[in-house]
């Protein structure tokens, strides 16, 4: 029989690495199995890494981690076909320690993060696919990989195998996702001179900017686009629910091409050169789509457990926190010599009491609501643009007249009541 470990972590993304790091640091014998050529080679996100949750794992990580730029400005663009209403916040306090968040390129960052777990003593095995959990008498006792002599055994298996976790599914923890529970994001990394980026986005060296794009960026389909500044590249992408793509019969890369060519966006990208094209699913079903996250000898973390806050484009921080809490629970279980679901359930309790569970609950209806009522994206955002255009166009009409016209253009009294009701509903699901 092959070697035994205290814990097997499947998948080297933020959740899996954070978990392996904490376990190894706590003295556990842990093996981290990654299907990609190296950690990060198959991992995708728009690119915002939140400082706080990363520091909960590695304090002061920003002094040595390969980061792109600390974000000092966050903009939000409500886009129509040829216009945009923009608001945002820029603050110098975000440009210095302790920082708020950073843009990162996952291929670099995850590799570094995994190397820190290896330094702690975790064993990293790349290019290996875990094909199934080995279950004996209802307990997960190990995993089977696609390699010869590929069985490995451990007291606990942590499933950090990402969105659409086949392993959790085969254990019956969750069903096949519906198209309205997952988003498909496509993005490109565009090479652009450092100096040009700083001029174009009004930045000093070592400052970054994020722009979130709503409305026409996704042709009014529920979803968002984003444009982030890296050191010497830009990340641009769009993500929409799969159901939206299906309903509108549009291909994801067409949407990406559309936003790249949008008159509000094109000038930012001019002269850049395509470096990478990436696509990934994002679990956006939220709290209601979460399956079982704990079983006898097994814990599910990160995307595999649907831990994404789609409204605030947060995911990696939820993943890391879940990985860290899973590790704490497993170290506790090792002391007790008990790896039953009853004990490991402390992970779920702790997770749901943390900001992760709280935020999942807060936004449990948001995505579903906006999916059900498309007018927010395809009607109200254009309306907002028309109003701004009228108000700010100086044409000799008095401001009173303008206000009156804007009010009239919104529609009949019935329309206005509908909008008020939608505003109230949106507030309800977001509050």
């Amino acid at each position: 029989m092959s070697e035994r470990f205290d814990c097997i972590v499947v998948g080297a993304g933020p959740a899996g690495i954070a978990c392996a790091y904490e376990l190894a640091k706590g003295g556990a014998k842990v093996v981290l199995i990654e299907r990609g050529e190296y950690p990060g080679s198959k991992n995708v996100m728009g690119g915002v890494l939140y400082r706080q949750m990363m520091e909960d794992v590695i304090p002061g990580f920003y002094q040595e981690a390969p980061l792109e730029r600390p974000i000092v400005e966050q903009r939000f663009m409500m886009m129509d076909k040829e216009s945009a209403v923009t608001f945002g916040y820029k603050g110098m306090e975000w440009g210095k320690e302790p920082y708020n968040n950073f843009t990162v390129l996952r291929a670099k960052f995850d590799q570094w993060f995994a190397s820190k777990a290896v330094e702690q003593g975790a064993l990293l095995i790349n290019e290996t696919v875990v094909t199934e959990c080995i279950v004996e008498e209802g307990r997960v006792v190990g995993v089977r990989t696609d390699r010869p002599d590929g069985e490995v055994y451990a007291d606990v298996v942590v499933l950090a195998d990402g969105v659409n976790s086949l392993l959790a599914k085969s254990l019956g923890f969750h069903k096949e996702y519906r198209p309205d529970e997952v988003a498909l994001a496509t993005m490109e990394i565009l090479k652009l001179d450092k100096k040009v980026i700083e001029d174009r986005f009004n930045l000093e060296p070592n400052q970054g900017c994020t722009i979130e794009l709503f409305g026409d960026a996704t042709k009014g389909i529920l979803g968002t686009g984003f444009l982030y500044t890296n050191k010497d590249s830009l990340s641009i992408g769009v993500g929409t629910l799969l159901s939206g793509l299906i309903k509108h019969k549009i291909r994801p890369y067409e949407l990406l091409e559309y936003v790249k060519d949008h008159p509000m966006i094109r000038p930012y990208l001019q002269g850049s050169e395509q470096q990478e094209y990436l696509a990934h699913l994002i679990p956006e079903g939220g709290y209601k789509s979460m399956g079982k996250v704990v079983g006898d000898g097994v814990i599910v973390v990160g995307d595999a457990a649907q831990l994404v806050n789609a409204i605030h484009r947060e995911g990696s921080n939820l993943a890391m926190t879940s990985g860290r809490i899973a590790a704490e629970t497993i170290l506790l279980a090792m002391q007790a010599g008990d790896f039953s679901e009853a004990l490991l359930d402390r992970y779920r309790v702790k997770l749901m009491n943390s900001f992760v569970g709280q935020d999942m609950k807060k936004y449990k209806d948001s995505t579903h609501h906006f999916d059900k009522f498309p007018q927010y994206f395809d009607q109200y955002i254009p309306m907002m643009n028309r109003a701004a255009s009228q108000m700010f166009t100086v044409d000799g009409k008095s401001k009173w007249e303008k206000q009156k016209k804007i009010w009239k253009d919104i529609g009949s009294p019935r329309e206005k009541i509908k909008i008020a009701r939608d505003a109230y509903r949106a507030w309800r699901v977001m509050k």
Partner: protein
Amino acid sequence: MLHIIACIKQVPDTKIIKMNPKTNTMDRASAPAILNPYDAHAVEEAVRIKKKYGGIVSVLTMGPPPAVKAIKKCIEIGADEGYMISDRRFAGADTLATSYALTKALDKIQKSRPVDLILCGKMTIDGDTGQVGPGIARRLDIPPLTSVKKVESVHQEEGHIIVHRKIEDGHEVIQSTLPCLLSVEKEINEVPYSSFPNMIKAARYDPVIWSVDDLEDVDIKQLGLKGSPTIVAKVWAPPKPEGGKMLEGSPHDQVDQILSVILEKKELFQAKGGS
């Protein structure tokens, strides 16, 4: 017990590497470093011989510290030990200086465990010379057998090996004394997907790393750039092939056109032995 050594090199993946259009040199940062594919076959063959006849497989490389990754890859394939020589004084070596440095490392390895067989890949994909293998054999004064596509049998007791060498119009079967050096073709074997226990072993493995000072009787003048008489006078990109000619018209017209081209360039088709 046979002691087989495979000499390996970490190379940039030339399948995806970008060339610097100004200098015509490789932009090494643009491609990941991998184990030279020919060397993977050499290691695999060493492991196969070990499995059949018993023994131990060591790998040896010269390179910068990150080349440890290539040694780990060999452990995944099934090698038992890894040695690396790494020192700034080795840098800039051509094939002459490289074979000198590797020979000095082999001398040191031989002191604790004599070597019966040395395997090399046919060539590296970044240098394409295929000279280091024979260079080592010459310096050790053992027979170099190049273009080996099959190892028929190894007879340690009798002190010989029988291999198949690829030649222009077929192959030849050769018997050589041991120790000797083989440089192997890709077709000698297929490198299988490594087993999980080997992956674990490789993840844990730390190779022996020697600097110049750890080696004995080294003539510093023969190392690195200083010991490399090769001069790169000029680097240029091969001209891009010109696009072919597109035949248009009805199928009938196109057949007529192609026939006239063939008749016009008859000699091209005859050169291959046709009539």
